[in-house]
């Protein structure tokens, strides 16, 4: 009690809304820019003409280019990024571990393996079936990681991350072995599992979209449960929260989001780790505010990575997942070092 108490800064509704609004505008601007980038660059004026529905042959051509090729790709990047980011935010709160992320607890790789096996067994499986299969595989891998990492009633943070990476690597390798023996056609169809939105079309967006539209709002509605869980089991129980129900309810959302995102763009490395950390830094630790910010940051990050990958050395395309991994890996190592201490 040495320092005089400071009055708290006035937190108006407007100030609270400014951050997500600003981010949303930034992401929108980035999306507009990304729509103009490609093998045939589209100047903003032409792009605007096409988007605003002006008649003319040139505008028609641009419209087709933008709507059939670039827009689904941009939407896939935005959705995938937001889904991984929100999934990671939930995981970090529920297991109370800063190292948790869908790709670091086996969820992403488990989903990828399940998708590979599903398409191998049922080559004509309908698109809507893929996320369900992915979710099943994701839960399998996740439960295996939890069982292996558990130390009595505790779940040591670093151990969870290391076992998650190990199980994830095993799932990925298994998936690749399976693909070696599969037809070239299947291999090509599943190339995106490595983590890219290259070649994303409306069909692919369509299979993940219902999941995103259901689970992203669900995550936000559960934000106070996440806050309670982040206080620890005892405190959450003391406040009358049904902890087991809360945990599995929120994990169901997190795993569902990551698994369906995998069927859209594969595993985008470290997005689910970095975006939540950045969001907490900007918006604090209450999830009602953190979740939307995290979603926007994830969306923006993946779109930026994909756009960067397209303009780095055309016509070569650097996968978005590769760029996010290059950015995220050093941060992961830093966190690992800090948490292990």
């Amino acid at each position, binding site marked *: *009690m040495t320092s005089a*108490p*400071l*009055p*708290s*800064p006035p*937190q108006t509704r407007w100030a609270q809304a400014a951050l997500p609004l600003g981010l949303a505008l930034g992401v929108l601007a980035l999306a507009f820019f990304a729509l103009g980038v490609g093998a045939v660059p589209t100047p903003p004026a032409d792009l605007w003409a096409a988007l605003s529905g002006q008649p003319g042959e040139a505008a028609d051509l641009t419209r087709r280019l933008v709507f059939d090729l670039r827009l689904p790709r941009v939407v896939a990047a935005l959705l995938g990024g937001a889904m991984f980011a929100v999934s990671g935010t939930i995981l970090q709160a529920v297991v109370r571990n800063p190292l948790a992320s869908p790709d670091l607890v086996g969820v992403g790789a488990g989903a990828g393996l399940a998708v590979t096996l599903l398409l191998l067994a049922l080559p004509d499986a309908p698109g809507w079936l893929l996320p369900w299969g992915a979710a099943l595989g994701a839960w399998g891998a996740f439960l295996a990681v939890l069982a292996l990492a558990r130390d009595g009633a505790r779940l040591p943070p670093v151990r969870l991350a290391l076992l998650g990476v190990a199980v994830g690597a095993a799932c990925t390798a298994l998936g690749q072995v399976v693909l070696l023996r599969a037809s070239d056609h299947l291999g090509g169809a599943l190339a995106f599992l490595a983590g890219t939105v290259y070649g994303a079309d409306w069909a692919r967006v369509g299979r993940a979209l219902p999941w995103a539209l259901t689970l992203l709002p669900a995550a936000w*509605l559960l934000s*106070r449960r996440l*806050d*309670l869980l*982040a*206080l*620890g089991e*005892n*405190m959450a*129980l*003391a*406040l*009358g*929260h*049904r902890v087991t129900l809360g945990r599995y309810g929120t994990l169901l959302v997190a795993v569902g989001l990551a698994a369906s995102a995998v069927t859209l763009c594969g595993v985008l490395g470290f997005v689910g780790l970095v975006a939540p950390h950045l969001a*907490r830094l900007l918006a*604090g*630790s*209450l999830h009602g505010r953190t979740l939307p910010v995290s979603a926007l940051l994830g969306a923006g990050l993946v779109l930026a990575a994909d756009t960067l990958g397209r303009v780095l050395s055309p016509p070569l395309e650097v996968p978005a997942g590769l760029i996010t991994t290059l950015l995220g890996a050093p941060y992961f190592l830093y966190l690992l070092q800090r948490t292990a201490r």
Partner: protein
Amino acid sequence: MTEPIPPRPLEASHLTLGYGEQAILSDLNFALRGGAVTSLVGANGCGKSTLLRALSRLLAPSGGSVMLDGQDLHRLNAKEVARRLAILPQGPVAPEGLTVEQLVWFGRHPHQGFLGGRSEADRAQVAWAMSQTGMTAFAGRPLEALSGGQRQRAWIAMSLAQSTPVLLLDEPTTYLDLSHQLEVLELVQRLNREQGKTVVMVLHDLNQAVRYSDELVAVQGGRVYAQGDPAELMTPELLRDVFGLKAHVLQDPDTGRPHIIPYAVARVLPPQAGGLGSPEFMSQTGP
């Protein structure tokens, strides 16, 4: 905001507690006095914190029952219990960046609906809890920027915001220096006298327990060794049997209550009972 005082808010009958197969406490029978400050005392590892956890629904009993206002505590709805009884577990940790006011709002969770709309009553209770604990000026501060004593008061404010007639505190003074310990205990005393709160706490310091409690429950060897007025309870015999201490029991010139001065270890205790009379115990650091 004085709550009506139930005569016997918490009652244990044939209560058996343990983790896994091993029973830590068996066949306990006692009732807590409504409107009083009761301290659970005993040696390290005697099960007093375990008992507090069972009295608050954090730990399910392996036998017997705990009654809250005559209803089985462990069969009541979770939120219903949290509206009648608040517990502050030992050493709680908040996520980084959480401010005092945000923390105190968690105390309203048991009173809020699924979407957590905030009523006028909620706001009033949060403001009241912060003013009672002297935390109003710190409302916007993140917890990690506070001193240990202030942080503990912020957590107590959260429990107060639950507006329960019963408040349970598990070693509320651990890790605090002496002046902050007394600050917390005086706050507890004031809440009891002015708001009529029934308080049950686990305390390590016997003299503090005597000074700030209306009733003591001494736990030893998996049972309640004795329960009653501190003045009658604190005898050299009890100190020997419960704490393994040889001690003088003087009269505190200030309160007229007993004051204990331990001077030797009374017997060699089995190792699992924890280091009684060890320097650790004497200096009141946590277990």
